[in-house]
């Protein structure tokens, strides 16, 4: 997919790696065969694509993580707020809560984040 986003299929695959890394590439192929019914060559092809994008790397037959799942989706979130809300997090929250109200749990967590952020 374009501009750093992961397609539905790629994210399924990436989740498998994030959950099991570091993992031998042969093992990964077996895992994909079981979970996704993919042939070995398919697994290696998609792996190569994601390694080219810098998310994982294949070192001597072992697949290792370069960008963790949290970091990856954090970057995606930043890009979204930048592009859709001009970098304004409050604007994002306002849009988010327009259709779904915040739960009490959400409010507590956000308050905690605000408090600890203020301390930095």
């Amino acid at each position, binding site marked *: *997919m374009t501009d750093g986003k992961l*397609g*539905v*299929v790629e994210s399924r695959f990436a989740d498998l790696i994030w959950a099991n890394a570091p993992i031998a590439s042969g093992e990964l192929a077996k895992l994909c065969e079981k979970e*996704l019914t*993919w042939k070995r060559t398919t697994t290696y*092809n998609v792996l190569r694509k994601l390694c080219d994008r810098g998310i994982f790397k294949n070192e001597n037959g072992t697949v290792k993580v370069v960008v963790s799942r949290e970091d990856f989706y954090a970057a995606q979130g930043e890009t979204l707020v930048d592009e859709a809300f001009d970098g304004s997090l409050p604007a994002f929250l306002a849009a988010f809560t327009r259709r779904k109200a915040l739960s009490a749990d959400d409010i507590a967590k956000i308050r905690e984040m605000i408090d600890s952020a203020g301390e930095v």
Partner: protein
Amino acid sequence: MGAVFLKLLNMGITASWLILAVLLLRFLLKKAPKWISCLLWALAALRLICPISVESRLSLIPSAETLPQTVMTGNSFQVNTGLNAVDAAVNTYLGDHYYEGVSVPADYGNTVLNLLGFLWLLGVMALVTYSTVSYLRLRRHVSAAIPFKESIWLCDYIKTPFILGAFRPRIYLPSDLTETQRSHVLAHERAHLKRRDHWWKLLGFGLLTVYWFHPLVWRLPPGLRGNRCERADSLRAEL
């Protein structure tokens, strides 16, 4: 080889009458119900496939064997199109211009036909190779797909949905469709499957592989295909 090719030539010429009839009819009766043209295409296809011809007094087709067997065995080239005017003109022309003063070897017809038959076979093999390679490449392109439900798969690397496979067809969808888009697309593709379009496509392609030398046969598949998408949409609307 020559005999096979001769048979195909004759069948092809006979079918030409039917194909021309369909094309003419579609041009004249644009508003006619589509099943009429489907029926005519079916007759043309049948004529192309079935080597046994039924001679009927009621048949509008002038002749089932335009190039008679004597083309192979004899040392002359006479056509028998069934239209006397054409026969007379062609045979006279050939007689005057090609066989006068020339001694034609006894099995000339046979040799030529064998050569043509051989060339035909080369063409068939080239087409079969091309289609096999295309199919395998497409299969490889969508190998990185995940199952969605039944035999519907999602793939990141395709831009348009399509059906692949004739016997156990799979519907491949781009992975970035919204739910409404997806349900519309699925309804459309399912309508295609219901009308067995994947089989017709295979048949059309089979005919083309065998009759690649026949210019009118290249008009067949688009005729079928154009009908198919509209009919799939109207079928979906009915569902």
